[in-house]
């Protein structure tokens, strides 16, 4: 009897998940200015705060995600990233005013006010979303020779996802839906991604188990 593999996710599924995460990151980032502007205005420095926080959060996420991928990479941990990112995005929807108001009152300079608000609202969910990329690479890589190829493929889909999130949000979503509705959309998409990972992995693992027992019987 063969031990089940830690994951049996097909590559295209992992790529699709990375796409979803890329889309979510940029959807949230594009809404960031909209969320902060009632308190900190629409000046260039507010955008600067948001982009800085996203960049730093992603870089930390990449580091941590890469580190986590060295310990038996598996589908359950992978799904957990998506669930955690979804849950940690909820304060953006539910607590934005409660978080921004005291900052607005305490800090006069909108540059630092928006920076701190961005950290509190966006750092954690974005860092978690950042963990998904290196972890996805690890799940896709089966051999050293393929690692660069898989990393390239992964960057390709997740960055493409980011482009879709950016364009979709700024051109259409804000015209069709309220900010919080769009954010709920991102949360639901992340949760659905987590479910898909678990279900597909379960099914695929059953498949491989069946196949391997068949082989054993035949042998």
């Amino acid at each position, binding site marked *: 009897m063969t031990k089940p593999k830690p994951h049996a996710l097909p590559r295209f599924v992992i790529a699709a998940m990375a796409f979803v995460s890329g889309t979510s990151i940029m959807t949230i980032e594009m809404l960031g200015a*909209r969320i902060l*502007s*009632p*308190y*900190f*205005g*629409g*000046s*260039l420095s507010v955008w600067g705060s948001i982009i800085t926080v996203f960049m730093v959060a992603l870089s930390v996420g990449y580091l941590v995600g890469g580190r986590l991928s060295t310990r038996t990479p598996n589908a359950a941990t992978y799904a957990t990233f998506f669930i955690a990112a979804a849950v940690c995005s909820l304060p953006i929807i539910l607590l934005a005013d409660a978080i921004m108001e005291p900052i*607005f*009152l305490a800090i006069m300079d*909108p540059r630092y006010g928006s920076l701190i608000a961005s950290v509190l609202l966006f750092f954690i969910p974005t860092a978690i979303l950042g963990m998904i990329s290196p972890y996805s690479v690890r799940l896709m890589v089966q051999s050293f020779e393929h690692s660069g190829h898989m990393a390239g493929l992964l960057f390709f889909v997740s960055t493409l996802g980011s482009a879709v999130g950016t364009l979709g949000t700024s*051109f259409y979503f*804000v*015209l069709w*839906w*309220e*900010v*919080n*509705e769009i954010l709920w959309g991102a949360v639901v998409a992340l949760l659905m991604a987590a479910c898909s990972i678990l279900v597909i992995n379960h099914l695929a693992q059953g498949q491989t188990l069946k196949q391997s027992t068949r082989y054993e019987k035949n042998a």
Partner: protein
Amino acid sequence: MKKMLERSNKLALLVVLLLAAMPLSAATIHEEKSKYRDITVTQVGDRRCLLFNVHRGDRNQTCMLVNDKLRLVFDYTRMSFAGLLLNAEPKRILVIGLGGGSIPMALSDRYPQAVIDVVEVDEAVVRVAKEFFYFQETPNMQVFVDDGRPFIKRAGIRGQSYDFIVLDAFSGDYIPEHMLTREFLEEVKLIMTPESVLVANTFSTSRLYDHESVTYQHVFGEFYNFKLPSTGNRIIIAQLEPLPPRSELMSVARALADSLDKYGVPLLQYPRRLSTAVDWDGSRRLLTDQYSPGNLLQGN
């Protein structure tokens, strides 16, 4: 009607372009790129103009006659003074959006005792207004480089109020969407008293007109809508109290008109132009902090 306005705008643009192409073309005396836009200062004869993003073909501009600095050149700047019909003696004035400074300068000249706070997000505009448009701060008139929304929010928290508020931040190519929303107007209300009047210089064309009208009506109830055929701008004039009868406006206009003559404001013509008719699509969605795609709506 909207079509006609648009056409007359286009015609005006054509005239401007033709004038610009003539040998006596505008001399550019200053150009700079600020954080927010390209700023150009031109001069033809004694007419000096401040243009934003001229390369992109925006016709948004504010002009001054260097030999008659206080005279307002454009209808839309003069129209802001219609707000005085509701409060003829403002003591605390707030102007959001400096531009060439013509509105605050005229107000400061007419009401030297009044405290005037001007808020401008772009420090380059403040510099250019001072250097090229003779704008000067006085003990009573101060400029704050800040975004209008946090400035007003803070003023409200401090319990400050203004009795004449001019929102003139919408004449750029990019609309500050956070200053079109219900929540913003509620914050403006907090700095208003029963004597206060709000004058907002906004748009008369595009889908945004409907959305914006719906939003102002939601927050203020009935307001005066002020349009002139010569300009694509419209001025919203609102107050907390129910609007006064038009006959009252006429008597204020008669009392005030002479003193506004030197700024070129034909105040006597204004009362009959102020309309409370609902000429917008009332089914349009309210603009809120959650839903405010002003820039997308304007393009449609």
